């Protein structure tokens, strides 16, 4: 973990998202899939809280971040120009355990593709070819990115509006696969998607890891801001930023998780 002013080497625009290529050798060298960085957004009067972004890729001294514009911080990021500097802290958190099965399914919803893309890259390096399922709300949401990823990975796209890949949710797409097709599941996406996914594969008894999101303050495990309810005799919370963001399915108290907002 370190804090760096990373030189923004390149910005690419994909629909409502930007892909930032940042020079951060220390972070890139240390990062494993599932880890994230905390980005300071804004310059003269930056946002008080840094924004967490999963690492999309890390190689050759660079990390890539894929940020979808949803609010003030991400809007600011989307207007950065190559040559500017970005203040970030990372790599943070616990990443994915990668030796779970030789036929892994990677299931992403929206910007949840980020950590799974990194994971897919690393799995390929280890000669494990994952199946990547990526669901979007709108087919156009990430511009050309799906097409690009399709060239490099075994990718199944689907979109709710039917404009890209199959119409429907990514969980529906996954359900159409026969179960023995994969022997491990990795997922990242909106809460509802994770819920549907959990329901879908519950019986299968597969190793199942998820990258969760929660609002963060410190990002390093100090403030207890990013609590996620875990299974235990009495109410207890783990920290998404430090104990996660990757958790095993069994670790989470799903009822409490969905009871929250």
């Amino acid at each position, binding site marked *: *973990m*370190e*804090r760096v002013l990373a030189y923004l080497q390149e910005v690419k625009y994909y629909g409502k998202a930007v892909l930032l290529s940042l020079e951060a050798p220390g972070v890139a060298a240390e990062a494993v899939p599932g880890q994230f960085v905390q980005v*300071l957004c804004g310059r003269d*009067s*930056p*946002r*008080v*809280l*840094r924004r967490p972004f999963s690492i999309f890729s890390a190689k050759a001294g660079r990390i890539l971040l894929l940020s979808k514009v949803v609010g003030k911080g991400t809007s600011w990021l989307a207007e950065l120009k190559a040559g500017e500097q970005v*203040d970030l*802290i990372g790599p943070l958190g616990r990443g994915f355990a990668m030796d779970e099965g030789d036929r892994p399914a990677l299931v992403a919803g929206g910007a949840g593709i980020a950590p799974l893309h990194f994971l897919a890259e690393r799995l390929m390096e280890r000669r494990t070819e994952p199946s990547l399922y990526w669901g979007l709300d709108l087919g156009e949401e990430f511009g050309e990115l799906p097409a690009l990823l399709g060239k490099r990975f075994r990718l199944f796209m689907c979109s709710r509006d039917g404009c890209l890949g199959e119409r429907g949710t990514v969980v529906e797409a996954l359900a159409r696969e026969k179960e023995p097709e994969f022997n491990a599941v990795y997922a990242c996406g909106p809460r509802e998607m994770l819920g549907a996914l959990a329901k879908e594969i519950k019986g299968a008894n597969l190793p199942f890891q998820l990258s969760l999101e*929660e*609002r*963060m*303050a*410190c*990002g*390093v*495990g*100090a*403030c*207890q*801001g*990013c*609590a*996620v*309810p875990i299974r235990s005799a*009495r*109410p*207890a*919370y783990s920290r998404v930023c*430090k104990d996660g963001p990757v958790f095993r399915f069994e670790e989470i108290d799903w009822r*409490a998780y969905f*009871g*929250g*907002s």
Partner: protein
Amino acid sequence: MVDLRVNLAGIELPNPVLMASGVFGTGTEYRELLEVGRLGGIISKAVTLEPCPGNPPPRIWETPCGMLNSIGLQNKGLEAFLEEDLPALLSHGIPIIANVAGFSEEEYLEVARRLDGIGEIRGIELNISCPNVARGGIHFGAEASSVVNLVARVREVYNGVLLVKLSPQVYDIGEIARAAVEGGADALSLVNTFPGMAVDVETWKPRLASVTGGLSGPAIHPLAVRAVWEVAQVVNRPILAMGGISGWEQAVEMLLVGATAVAVGTAIFTDPLTPLGILEGLENYLERMGIASPEELKGKIRL
């Protein structure tokens, strides 16, 4: 030559820039991001007698120049604090103050009693101002009579340096401070967060699962300065000041209105080097002004 050391009601601090309760863990979480050993001290997260799970998430929301939190005293309880957290806190070689909380008067007393005599803990900060719990916390800190009473009872069982941390969400904070001193406080710690709230206009749900939370950060700085100033005028005890301090200027403001030392909270989230930047800025400032010690700035506001 500037000598940054200050004495906070008997606690010798290497410098007047501490980390506020609840934002810095045991310090080890931040070890890779700043030299923790250069800080003036660390105030622990609230310690209660039993383990406390804290409030359900979401617990954090950003606001203009500030943030709301509703962590709610999550901690492992006194036993685990002493066994696990305290050694980690002490490992940095700087003064440690324990923030003590409770859901009942008895709980405060029991925690204080058990911390009494543990020499490595340089003092306790009695948190009668947490806005994030249904019982305890701020409810003990709002009325002068209950403050006198609670502080006096803690004073009986705790012989070390006793700081009392006040809530700013009262009409007359000077009155509450006087009550704390009457009860036997050696020093006052202020301010804790202000009760606040935010709502998601798309879902109509509160941004925090606990509905309300505590506001901290630069937004509250002018309110904190005024609170410190009010208290400095009416009590003759050192003040550990906090609230929106994010640079040396805000630290100096606090000293000028009467604080002896300051603590950094929320600003550590924005920039982990904040406390060290404050230290350097303060040292340069004192040098430039020809002032030998931070204590010489204390209360020097020109009216």
